[in-house]
């Protein structure tokens, strides 16, 4: 048996109790929701903790409700399965349901939560291995090692941000709430992420993510595509999300985000600029897709499945596919289906 290391365990039933417990020793305490990321990481000793606090017993952290401005607030411990099957999500934020349904397998989605997906540890081929494997290469910078095996001359870690709900929620302009013993703060979800594979969240260790909020629907169109080796279980090597607001023929506002290409979600600034004020058609799609591939941050490294060159090429195809779906253009057959 691959056993978890010994830790002390708490099951608070209110946010106050949880933040108070967490504040006692944030550095050696970890939060757990569904455990589908934390438990594998602790079993392989990537992550350690003296104390683990479960958020599952906190009723106010779970469930989906409509906000006063007509948007949707999703509690941090709402399971991925509950989000994917929610009627309001299906009706007004279908691309979010698609993204959530692409995560792992149905078994994992019955336990895994949205909060855990947003705070998911970054991933790398040299890191997501068992302890013996990592010891044999003297570990790497993300643990106790000296260097980064992906980019040995680099001073930083490039492990990959892999939460598949992240790009679509960023594209929708979602907001999150972080709560600590000292109070609450609200920030755009995009500001939760830092471009560093080790220190990948701007959340302080004493803070709990309590909620993610989507703005009220206002006639936008959205799409999500994900690339991975198998149609289930595997993490993605690329996810692309776009949300666009079009008044008449031309695009007023559009957001295109990539996931699993770097240590943060990546906003395709150049592609977005190229589409504003124009119709979304074959020509503008081709231009925007080519720009996405050349964009800053969109340069996959050799630290996930598949060759980085091929993954880079697929950015162009997948951005085009997402924009085509948004514009109602016929679908082109690409690499492996991301979904049945």
């Amino acid at each position, binding site marked *: *048996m*691959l*056993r*978890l*290391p*010994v*830790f*002390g*365990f708490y*099951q608070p039933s209110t946010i106050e109790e949880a933040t108070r417990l967490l504040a006692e020793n944030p550095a050696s305490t970890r939060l757990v929701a*569904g*455990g*589908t990321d934390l*438990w*594998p990481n602790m*079993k*392989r000793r990537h992550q350690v903790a*003296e104390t683990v606090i*479960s958020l*599952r017993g906190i009723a106010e952290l779970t469930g989906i409700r409509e906000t006063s401005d007509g948007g949707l607030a999703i509690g941090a411990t709402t399971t991925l*399965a509950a989000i994917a099957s929610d009627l309001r999500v299906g009706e007004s934020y279908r691309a979010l349901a698609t993204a959530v349904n692409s995560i*792992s*397998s*149905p*078994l*994992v989605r*019955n*336990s895994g939560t949205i909060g855990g997906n947003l705070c998911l540890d970054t991933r790398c081929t040299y890191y997501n291995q068992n302890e013996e494997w990592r010891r044999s290469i003297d570990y790497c910078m993300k643990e106790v090692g000296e260097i980064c095996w992906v980019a040995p001359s680099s001073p930083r870690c490039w492990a990959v941000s892999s939460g598949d709900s992240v790009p679509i929620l960023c594209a929708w302009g979602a907001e999150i709430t972080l709560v600590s013993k000292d109070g609450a703060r609200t920030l755009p979800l995009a500001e939760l992420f830092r471009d560093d594979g080790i220190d990948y969240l701007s959340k302080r260790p004493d803070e709990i993510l309590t909620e993610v909020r989507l703005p009220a629907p206002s006639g936008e169109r959205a799409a999500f595509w994900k690339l991975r080796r198998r*149609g*289930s*279980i595997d993490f993605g090597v690329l996810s692309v999300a776009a949300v666009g607001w079009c008044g008449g023929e031309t695009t007023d506002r559009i957001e295109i985000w990539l996931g699993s290409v770097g240590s943060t979600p990546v906003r395709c600034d150049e592609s977005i600029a190229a589409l504003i004020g124009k119709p979304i058609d074959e020509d503008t799609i081709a231009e925007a897709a080519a720009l996405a591939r050349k964009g800053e941050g969109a340069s996959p490294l050799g630290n996930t499945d598949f060759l980085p060159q091929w993954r880079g090429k697929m950015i162009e195809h997948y951005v085009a596919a997402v924009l085509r779906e948004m514009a109602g253009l016929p679908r082109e057959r690409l690499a492996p289906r991301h979904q*049945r």
Partner: protein
Amino acid sequence: MKEQRHTCTLRVNGEDAAVVFAVHHTLLEVLREEVGLTGTKHGCELGECGTCTVLIDGKAVLSCLELAVECEGREIETVEGLMIGNELHPLQSAFADLGAAQCGYCTPGILMAAKGLLAENPSPSRDHVIEALGGNLCRCTGYHKILEAVEWGAAILRGDLASRPPPEVFHGDRIPGEEVVDA
């Protein structure tokens, strides 16, 4: 660090099991090592294979990624609880009659994932079955017979015996409500 131990009663297959275990032990470990139910298998223990699947409050989840301490007060169902009295569950008889198991290591997890699916959708299409079993790996069968067996199990449960598979794939004699025919 000292182990924190927990004493409680888990509700497994409709029966109470009084157990003592360390809080960092998973439901998989406690089922196999404390409750003595070894039908739930351990494979990867990292969420990647599905052989440890059980139902918790009717939903198919991975027992290798659930702490036992968090299962107190919830209904746990394992493969040992599938039989209805002395009768095999229709999913079990369908698996046997269609030869849907070879080494059988993945079977308990697949049966539980299938039961979870049928509770939500008694008439799943082939795509629904493929989707629901997307977290369960089988290294022997090539999946085809598994998919057929889940569909046949669902048909028996619905009482739809007319969709019985053709004789060339059907080796069983256990069709509920029908006379057992001697070969």
